[in-house]
């Protein structure tokens, strides 16, 4: 992306908004990360973790609970958490100056969202119900960076802290972190 490859004509054929990620298999292309996750879950219903989209005994209501909390993630968690990730991780990386007002505003917004999560996770093991699902998983990328910069946000809330430790300890996630830390090339 540093060389603008995401804006090249070849890449724009895969992802017309010029963003990562884009997914390709023998059948098709998919973009938008949550769409990619759902596509993969639909494509491999018998493999690995089979409750990522709910379903099973809970049927439609259990799938709807996953959709609901995935929407909450996208609409309520992502805007402030992405703004914070940008300020706390990317701005220093590119050598620019952080914006303290943006940090304060977005920490406050995120705190309100995490208060709702803390309540929910006091009644429910994971966001959508008793099982780990895509709704929890979607929080891992931004959560990982936020916790490394300011663990207090998550860990000062008892239920959010418990939930974060559990979901970030999953072997599949640890593999992703290893891949991120491995030398590129």
């Amino acid at each position, binding site marked *: 992306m540093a060389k603008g490859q995401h804006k090249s004509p070849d890449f724009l054929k895969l992802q017309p908004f010029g963003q990562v990620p884009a997914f390709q298999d023998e059948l098709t292309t998919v973009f938008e990360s949550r769409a990619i996750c759902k596509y993969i879950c639909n494509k491999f219903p018998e493999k690995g973790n089979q409750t990522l989209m709910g379903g099973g005994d809970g049927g439609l209501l259990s799938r709807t609970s996953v*959709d609901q909390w995935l929407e909450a993630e996208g609409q309520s968690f992502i805007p402030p958490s992405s703004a914070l990730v940008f300020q706390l991780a990317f701005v220093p990386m590119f050598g620019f100056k952080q914006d303290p007002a943006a940090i304060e505003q977005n920490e406050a917004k995120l705190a309100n969202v995490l208060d709702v999560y803390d*309540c929910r996770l006091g009644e429910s093991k994971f966001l959508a119900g008793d099982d780990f699902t895509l709704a929890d998983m979607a929080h891992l990328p931004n959560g990982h960076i936020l916790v490394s910069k300011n663990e207090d946000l998550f860990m000062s809330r008892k239920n959010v802290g418990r939930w974060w430790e559990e979901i970030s300890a999953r072997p599949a996630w640890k593999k992703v972190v290893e891949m991120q830390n491995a030398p590129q090339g």
Partner: protein
Amino acid sequence: MAIKLHGQPWSNNTVRAMAVLNEKGLDHFAPGLDYELCPVDLRSGGHKRPEFLDLNPFGQIPVFQDGDGSVFESRAITRYVATRYKETGTDLLSASSAALETWLQVEGSQFNPPMFRIIFELGIKPLIGMSTNMSVVENESDKIGTVLDVYEAHLAKNKYLAGDEFTLADLNHMPEIYILSKSAKFDLIDSRPHLKAWWEDISARPAWEKTAVSLPF
């Protein structure tokens, strides 16, 4: 238990849920009332009361309730209704998983954030006694241009967003575009021939006309 939709007809998110209910032939206005629109008085803090927070802990409208459960987040509601009532009215999920999931997400993450900011200023604030901030409108109108160009190119090759049939991916866009169509910024859509044709097609659907007629815009 009857179907209840808690919200307000001036709220684009509530309208999204109304739109899907009308597509399924669940009529708010016919004799026999298939669903009840329960107004939530935001001005008096109705959305922050404990009984409402039990339904949606984020304290936001809409909330959908039927005999089986309760759902918040308008896109989770439209997905639920489209799935539960798949055999009634138009099947709103008749597209490949890849195309449907992609364009459902595109609406939520690319289209809606700037579009909402425009229509909130131009269409909703005047209805709830707040004043429009035109610099937000201009700012967001500039930003959304590149997103709409992608839609324009896509709709040049596809009749609907997810393929040959009208699906939930198209429906989820309708409240915001409708509110925009009542404002001075509709040229954002109108100036793009394929977007304009797509909008004219989908907004002529009888179910949408039924929804639109009940709205205050």
